[in-house]
């Protein structure tokens, strides 16, 4: 069975009578697969990630989304997280005063409780964070600071990957994870993501540029424009886009 099944999804901004942002998007992600979604600015890529995570600013007007056969759109935001949906934010949010360690532990235990699992013990938790943080070059000092407060762009993105590593989601959605990263940071982040590739885990990598896909090599590449997937292919499609740009798709759809 497909893990994530998006069928003919239509959506608009809530309360906005205006145009739809997603206009009949369909996508299937199976366990173990990495799907890249590319497209020009304003094509609806980030909207898709927000709708999957359950952000309340959007209204689904048609279509369906299921995760392991369950209706994802009916679930609360935190319920989706507990079911294994993880969104790595393009712009991670600052939560002042809440130490990153506190936050990580609260999130992990909340998810475990929702799934009816035991909470993690303090020593186990500390060990877990220490292991994962080291690989991503995240210092103890960063973990003591408020969530994302005073972090550089690169630090914020690494922190997102650390959270992903600790929460071990089923479906990872990476929204423009490469934006604002220099080449060294890009490497660290990509390695972190690659380490999480597994036969049980699906990933959707949203990006504007091909360069991220040199590091996180996808199984499938989809081109999105004006709220739809307009072309799908293998990893070579990304190279083609790099060479020719999005112009032809934008014309096609117009």
């Amino acid at each position, binding site marked *: 069975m497909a893990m994530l099944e998006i069928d003919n999804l239509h959506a608009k901004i809530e309360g906005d009578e205006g145009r739809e942002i997603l206009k009949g998007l369909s996508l299937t992600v199976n366990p173990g697969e990495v799907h890249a979604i590319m497209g020009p600015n304003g094509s609806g890529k980030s909207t898709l990630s927000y709708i999957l*995570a*359950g*952000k*309340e600013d959007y209204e689904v007007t048609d279509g369906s989304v299921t995760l392991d056969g369950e209706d994802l759109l009916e679930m*609360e*935001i*935190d319920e*989706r*997280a*507990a079911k294994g949906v*993880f*969104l790595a*934010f393009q712009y*991670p*949010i*600052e*939560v*002042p*005063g*809440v*130490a990153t360690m*506190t*936050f990580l*532990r*609260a*999130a*992990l*235990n*909340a*998810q475990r409780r*929702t799934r009816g699992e035991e*909470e993690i013990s*303090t020593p186990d938790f500390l060990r877990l964070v220490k292991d994962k943080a080291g690989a991503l070059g995240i210092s103890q000092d960063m973990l003591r600071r*408020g969530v994302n407060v005073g972090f550089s762009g690169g630090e914020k993105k690494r922190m997102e990957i650390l*959270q992903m590593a600790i*929460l071990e989601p089923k479906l990872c959605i990476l929204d423009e994870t490469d934006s604002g990263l220099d080449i060294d940071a890009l490497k660290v982040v990509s390695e972190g993501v690659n380490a999480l590739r597994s036969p049980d885990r699906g990933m959707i990598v949203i990006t504007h540029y091909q360069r991220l896909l040199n590091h996180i090599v996808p199984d499938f590449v989809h081109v999105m424009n004006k709220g739809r997937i307009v072309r799908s292919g293998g990893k070579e499609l990304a190279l083609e886009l790099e060479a020719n740009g999005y112009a032809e798709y934008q014309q096609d759809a117009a």
Partner: protein
Amino acid sequence: MPAVQETVEQVRSIDVDQYKYGFFTDIESEKAAKGLTEETVRFISAKKGEPEWLLEWRLDAFRRWQTMQEPEWARVSYPRIDYQDLYYYAAPKAKEGPKSIDDIDPEILATYEKLGIPLRERDALLGIESTGGSKVAVDAVFDSVSVATTFKEELAKAGVIFMPISEAVREYPELVKKYLGSVVPVTDNFFATLNSAVFSDGSFVYVPKGVRCPMELSTYFRINERNTGQFERTLIIADEGAYVSYLEGCTAPMRDENQLHAAVVELVALADAEIKYSTVQNWYPGDKDGKGGIFNFVTKRGDCRGDRSKISWTQVETGSAITWKYPSCILRGDESRGEFYSIAISNGYQQVDSGTKMIHLGRNTTSRIIAKGIAAGHSDNTYRGLVSAHRKATGARNFTNCDSLLIGDKCGAHTVPYIESKNSSAQFEHEATTSKISEDQMFYCRQRGLSDEEATALIVNGFVKDVLQQLPMEFAVEAQKLISVSLEGSVG
């Protein structure tokens, strides 16, 4: 930190308007006749076996009080208090003054146990060892009298006097006479004057020259009797170079009628002395419809009398139907410093009007104010503060930050600062913001798996962190839990 988790569990396990400390201890008590007359004042004074000068002091206060008006400038509204329909003195009936812990009525011991306050030193040590904290000496005030003070001997060895003020009047009359009313004058305000006339008990602390008090001191206030006002009086003196940290906690049973609490706290810091005063105020706030609850009209003031002295107020205000409270610092000594750290949370129909005054009189005096207000439900939460520099306060500095958070659209958050500078070299900076919890933060936390309530508790705890950090460790954990419990039911 595990506290967040515990908090959330606690929130879950509690009904909408459950107040954890709302039980009543059934104990026989001795009361003064209802109402307030000169006779009541004489009765209280006689009960305490007070010297003539103190009786005169009280009577003077009473006469002045009769000519005074209840203040109306605060942003609180409440039914008129009938001062003749209250009891001004209630004491648990016991053998003449408990000589040791074993003389205390077991019902009272059980009450404090239930509140988590160990009065037996042996228990206290056991309890404390398990949490790994330091020793805390407790003075327990039950309605109008102090029922027990722990660790008195150990403190006495260090030269620290810690005892009920009614005892101090007898044992250290010179000290009491010298300092009582020297920070909050008898006629300071309506409630302080009332307190001066009828105060029943409270704590007295004197830390001698150069002594660092070897443990935290704390007083635990409990209102038990019906229709009884509590009027305690606390006096803390840190002599030259001394240091003391003092904690205060308060609870009361749940009752349909409102109860009056009008306390006065006076702090005196002589040269190079430091007093740190922390409060976790959790009087009964009333039920979810705004019925009942404590009217908390409190005058707290510290006098930085000596050069380089320091007074720091930290308060976590979650209880009371009405809070009217402005712990202040008079920065008289050169280079003295005042601090005010406050978390004020209001939910249900609570009304909070609280803040501070920093009066800069000496040269190079500094002050810092961090106030965090959180309003939920139908409550109103006001920060009211004064920062002033007088003509001679050359080089005075103040930094103030007041932030308010609104949870829900039926509550109000207000900021009323007065900033008055009469000295050209004074440097004052004030900033204030009001907003709600950011939707982005909520979404981010919930995407990571936290529920609405968990996310709110987490973000609010982050919002108040700067203030929580000022509390002694044991208190901070307690306060953190209390904050989330107070916000219970505020999340839609």
